[in-house]
Structure formats: structure tokens, C-alpha cells
């Protein structure tokens, strides 16, 4: 697991909050969209926060999943033109996908939450399976790492 002292997770995914909130600082955009998370990341990167994870998901296309989690630094450090380019290109890429008439069931939403969470966990070297077991078994606080 990467040391989390300088991490801020921007997310609209409730599963990320449930599995990771004990270890990381999380900005939970509860009613926010995928695009809202991208915009928040862009604004913070423009303000000098370091971008730690790529803003676009793996192979899940924008507008095909409602969830996104992005990691930036908790505090602003120095403006990076390269990172600003990555985050603004990502927003451009997002916007070219047309809105579709999604009517996801709870089960499918849960799948999308899982994919977003596992991608994030992979990036953070966070034990995704352990996080899920905590979610499933509700391990009491005494088991905190």
C-alpha cells in the first residue's frame, strides 16, 4: 500500500468511501457525476495539486460508467503543465462521448462501483480484496491497520 499522507481521493463512488475511508482522505462528491469528478481534479491540478492517477478509467469508456475516482495531492505543490495537459485532455475525451440512455439496475451499479474501486486500489497498491472483505464482513475497528 502506498503511503497515504499526501493523498486526496476525489470520488463519487460510495464503495470507495466504505472500503478506504479509514486509510485515506476522501473528497466524496456524493451527488456528483463522472464529469464532476474530472472537473474537480482539473481545478485542483490547475491550482498546483499533484495528479497521482490517470483521470480516465482503464477500458471502461466515459459515459458508460457513472463512477470515477482520481487521486491528487492533499495540498498544492507546484503547477505541472504536463499534468494539466493530461487532465484537460481527459475532460475533452470525456465530452466527446455522447450521453446515453442508461437505466442501470442496482446490481449493475454495484459492478461499476467495483470496477472503479479495483482500478483505484490497483493504483494505490491497496489490498482491494481486504477492503472488500471489510465491506462484506464489517470487520470491527480493532482490526485497523
Amino acid at each position, binding site marked *: 500500500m502506498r503511503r497515504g499522507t499526501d493523498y486526496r481521493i476525489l470520488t463519487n463512488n460510495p464503495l470507495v468511501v466504505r472500503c478506504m475511508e479509514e486509510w485515506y482522505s476522501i473528497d466524496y462528491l456524493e451527488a456528483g457525476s463522472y464529469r464532476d469528478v474530472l472537473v474537480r481534479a482539473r481545478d485542483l491540478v490547475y491550482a498546483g495539486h499533484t495528479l497521482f492517477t490517470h483521470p480516465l478509467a482503464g477500458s471502461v469508456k466515459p459515459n458508460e460508467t457513472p463512477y470515477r475516482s482520481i487521486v491528487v495531492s492533499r495540498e498544492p505543490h507546484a503547477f505541472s503543465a504536463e499534468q494539466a495537459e493530461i487532465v484537460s485532455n481527459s475532460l475533452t475525451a470525456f465530452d466527446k462521448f455522447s450521453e446515453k440512455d442508461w437505466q442501470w439496475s442496482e446490481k*449493475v451499479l454495484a459492478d461499476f462501483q467495483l470496477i472503479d474501486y479495483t482500478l483505484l486500489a490497483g493504483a494505490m497498491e491497496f489490498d482491494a480484496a481486504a477492503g472488500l472483505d471489510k465491506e462484506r464482513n464489517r470487520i470491527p475497528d480493532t482490526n485497523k491497520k
Partner: protein
Amino acid sequence: MKLELGLIQIKDIQFSKECKVENGTLFVNADEVKAFAFADDDVKACVKDAHFDIAKPGESVRITPVKDVIEPRVKVEGPGGEFPGVIAKVDTVGTGRTHVMKGMAIVTAGKIVGFQEGVIDMSGPGAAYTDFSKLLNLVLVCDPVEGVHQHEYEHAVRIAGLRAATFVGELARNVKPDEIKTYETYGVKEGWEKFPNLPRVAYVHMLQSQGLLHDTYVYGVDAKKSLTTILNPTETMDGAIISGNCVSACDKNTTYHHQNNPVVEDLFAQHGKTLNYVCNIITNENVYLADKQRSSDWTAKLCRLLDLDGVIVSQEGFGNPDTDLIMNTKKIELVGVKTTIITDEYAGQDGKSQSLADADPLADAVVTGGNANEVIILPKMDKVIGTLDYVDKIAGGHAGSLRPDGTIEAEIQVITGATNEMGFGCLSAR
């Protein structure tokens, strides 16, 4: 390193009491294959039930949701075995002789993550978009044990498929091949002396490695935990790389794609004639930006160290991997090595949008595998192997994709292998 592939053409598959290959027909006892696939603790723990079906080219059959496609092979001479580090022991493969059952595949099907698995149509307009419609497919349909996590189940289905392919491949051990092909690459100095006037070319093979359900394994090692490294091309042909992901269907590299990587095949076809095929450089596509930087730095470093003249770069996936693709290409160009990219495009349904999520002026030589947003209507099939329950939910489908009459309106990204980024397929642009 020299590998012989003994190609055995399979012309028919039939269920039978005994398992054998005779006159090009694979006779298979489904219970025996299933028993072998289930002789693994993880498979037993996570797969409640499984059954086999056969799909043949031209039939009115739809296979969905597809997880992996695997070509049955068996190592008959030389060290190692198929799928080293996963099924066989971890010995280095890529030498000796391997028997290959051509014209057929093991396909694993069944729901893992609702929206990420694809469709193979054996006939109709959808069949033209996937080369898997031209194979005799022995399909392993799995059902999960209730309550099992998706990532545990993905692992179990992956292993079940590889074990089934291993069992079937073993039947080709004592069959005389219809054709034997030989592939050989040389050490750095040896190759240079042999082909002093030919350009030195390598293949930069990017592996999907973004996390659980998005992984690729090399000799059993999760690619996201590996630094950029070198493989002999014959190792790839011999099962060293396997697919462990549930990414969107059209540009997912299945295990079959790795075994039959067309970039490797085509570079070998030119090896010693127009170029000197030096090696494959494998690199990952991690989510963490520092990983992206490290891996692409290393790719460029290895290209320079090997004194290459040119490379072909292929990626897997869209979006986030586009950044790895461009980082690799830019850095390799900057150390003086020419690059050509193979990718697919998400250019919108009208094909007018920018195709990739990232770009650079140095990445000016690109071969496309097609536009994944292109819309297709797939007619109803008489038989479905698997289930249509998820068609509305797979990438490229949408609510209402599955019409009441059984036809599907979707983007071609629902079709397994439709826009493969190794160039395995027939879509391109001029």
C-alpha cells in the same frame, strides 16, 4: 531461440465417449474435460457448475458473455509446458516443439462483470467482425458459487479455461502435424553479424495491467508489478502471456491473441529479409502516473540499449492506456528510434471525433484497428450459448439494445476482438 510449431488442422469437433484427435476431428468427452478443469481448488471453490457446448462457423449461434478465448496447445519437445507459471511449471518456454490445434478454440463464457464481456456471433453481419466466428469453438459456460467476489470468480474461470485448453491440447501430443513452422531469433551480437545490413526492429507490446479484473500475466507474474522487460518472441507464441482481464470486448487481447499475436507472426515473416527481428519489449499500463513514467522511461531505455532502428507499438484498451501509448512512442522517438503505433479508435458513432485520448506530433505513424463506436445491428440467432441477460449492460450496448424481437443494436465494441489493437482482424482504414 528456436521454436517449431506443429500445426494440426482441426476440421470438426464432436462430443464423444472418448477423447482423441482422429483425421482432423476432435472427439471430446465433456465430462472428462470438466473433471480436469475442476481438479483445482479455486475452480472448485468458486464455480458452482459448468457445461460445454460446441459452436461451429456458419451456425445461427451467439456466444455471450465471452470471457476468454484460448488455443489448445501442447509442448512435445524441449523445456517447459503450456501457460508456464500458471498451469505448467515456470520453466522458460519458446524452444523445442509445440503442437497447435488450429481452427478451434476453447471459449470461456458466463457472467463475471455484467457490462464488460462480449459477443461472438457464428454467422450473420456480426460474424464478419470477429475472427473467432471462423473457429470451431468448444465453449465452457460457467456459473458462480453464490456470494463469491467477482475477482475470485474471474481467477477461477480463467484457470478453468486454461486447464480445459491444456487437457484438449494434450490430445494433440501424438498427432502428426499437417505443417511444421519454424521461428528463430538470435542473440544481439549473433543477429547483428548475421544481418549486418538489415534494420533492427523490435515489438513494444503493451500489456493491460490496471488492477483487479484488468490484468495480464507473464509467466504467472501480474504485469503491473513488473518493470518493462524483454521476451523472446517465441516465448509469447508458447503461452508465456495470458489474459486475466474483463475489459471491453472489442480491444481486449484474449489469450488466443497473445498465442497468435499477428505482430509477432508478421515480423517473423520479414525476419532476415527486410528486417532483423530483435525481440519483444513488454511493458505495462498502470493507473498510477509515476508507474506510467517509469515504465515508458524503461521502454525507451531498452530500445536505445538494444540499438534498435525501429519498433512497432501496440496497446490494449482505451483512455488511460492512450497516455502510456503516447509516452512510450514519444520517448522512443526521442532516443532516435522510429515508431509505428497500432491502436483502435473511439471516434464517435459518426467517426468525426478525435480517436485517442492523447496525442503527440512525434506519434505520426499509426495503423488503426477500426472505430469501436460504429453501430451495428445483430440479428436474432436461433441459439444462445451463455445468456443474453447482460446485452443491455455490456460496453457498447445500452438500455434497449436488446430488442423484443431478439435483434441487438449496439456499437461494434460489444464484439469480442472486433477492433483488436494487435491488428488481429480485418478492420482498418486507408
